[in-house]
């Protein structure tokens, strides 16, 4: 049990700007929250990809959210080890991600990537990279819709 449950609840409001239906905790980016000193909140984050440009936006969102709730002193700490893994994404978040149109990472083979629109497994990799570094671009052969696939790493 965290000594600061109210802060965790507060930061549930911070989402990944690229996947606005998933919170940074559900995604596994938010690692820890603590209050090392009176009035100071320290938030530990780990990036999905080294160059993820969303990290800066997420850090700003955290600071703003905490400031608005009366915590003006926020320290963002970056943690690299252990390296983020797509297996850390929580099951509920995977479901919401799929409903949002992004297929969550599949551990084994690329064959079982089903279209988020029509559930067909007749899908094709269009590009190893999609709209962001963490996603690949696919197209469904059944309904013809292109879609993003969150890459397993």
């Amino acid at each position, binding site marked *: 049990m965290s000594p600061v449950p109210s802060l965790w609840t507060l930061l549930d409001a911070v989402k990944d700007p690229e996947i606005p239906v998933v919170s940074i905790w559900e995604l596994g980016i938010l690692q820890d929250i603590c209050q090392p000193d009176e009035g100071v909140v320290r938030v530990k984050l780990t*990036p999905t*990809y*080294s*160059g*993820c*440009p969303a990290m800066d936006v997420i850090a700003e969102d955290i600071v703003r959210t905490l400031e608005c709730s009366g915590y003006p002193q926020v320290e963002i700490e970056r*943690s*690299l*080890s*252990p*390296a*983020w893994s797509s297996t850390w994404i929580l099951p509920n978040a995977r479901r919401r991600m799929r409903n949002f149109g992004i297929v969550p990472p599949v551990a084994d083979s690329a064959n079982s990537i089903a279209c988020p629109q029509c559930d067909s497994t007749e899908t094709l990799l*269009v*590009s*190893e*990279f*999609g*709209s*962001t*570094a963490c996603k690949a*671009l696919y197209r469904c052969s059944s309904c013809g819709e292109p879609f993003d696939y969150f*890459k397993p*790493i």
Partner: protein
Amino acid sequence: MDMQQEAVKDYGVRLGDDALILGHRLSEWCGKAPALEEDLALANTALDFIGRSRLFYSHAAELEGNRVSEDTYAYTRDCREFRNLLICELPCGDFAFTMARQYLVDEFYLAFMQGLTFSVEQTLAGVAAKAVKESRYHLRRSRQWMRVLGQGTDESHDRLQTAVNDLWGYTPEMFEPDELERKLVAAGVAVDTSGLKDDWMKAVNKTLAEASVQRPEGNWAVRGGRQGIHTEYLGHLLSELQFVQRAYPGLEW
């Protein structure tokens, strides 16, 4: 900062230099790649490398007591202070050249970063653990392009062969430890790059065969990047990369 820390800082900066310069080169394709998917892929790969450079640079800055920042290394040093491998700074050339370079360095960086995860320096090991995952992905793509271009049309094959010929002499430098590296290998910090060459050569031979590309003969080699002696191309690259900070020193977004 003691001597060991100074050496670790220098090591971090050179790894940051490799990643920044290669990342910048890849970013030059943004908006003009042969297809939209390739444009996205090259820009995203660039982002991975630039992100990697930020992690290496900010660790170095921490070792310097944060008197400097990641931006200091990227924007305020001149050619001779950069320590990147020469292969990273060569101009993009055509698409075949860009992908051949990427393939040759991806094979190297994957093995290198795997080695660096065992570093006694926790931050370097942490950056490497992230980089391994990204490099594995980069390699899968660049190796696939080697096969596609090599087995494509006569023109794509010839362009790939020319690219490999032109790049070949820039590869030995990847496996030549200098004094700094040797010192840090002994301390358990750095990767002994001379030990990566055999496996690299085996993997490259296999891919070249699959792409029906001849391995270049001869043993010409260009080196100097780790000593700050660069090709004529780095200055031009830096003039673009550093322009804003040179024109408006200290400017922030």
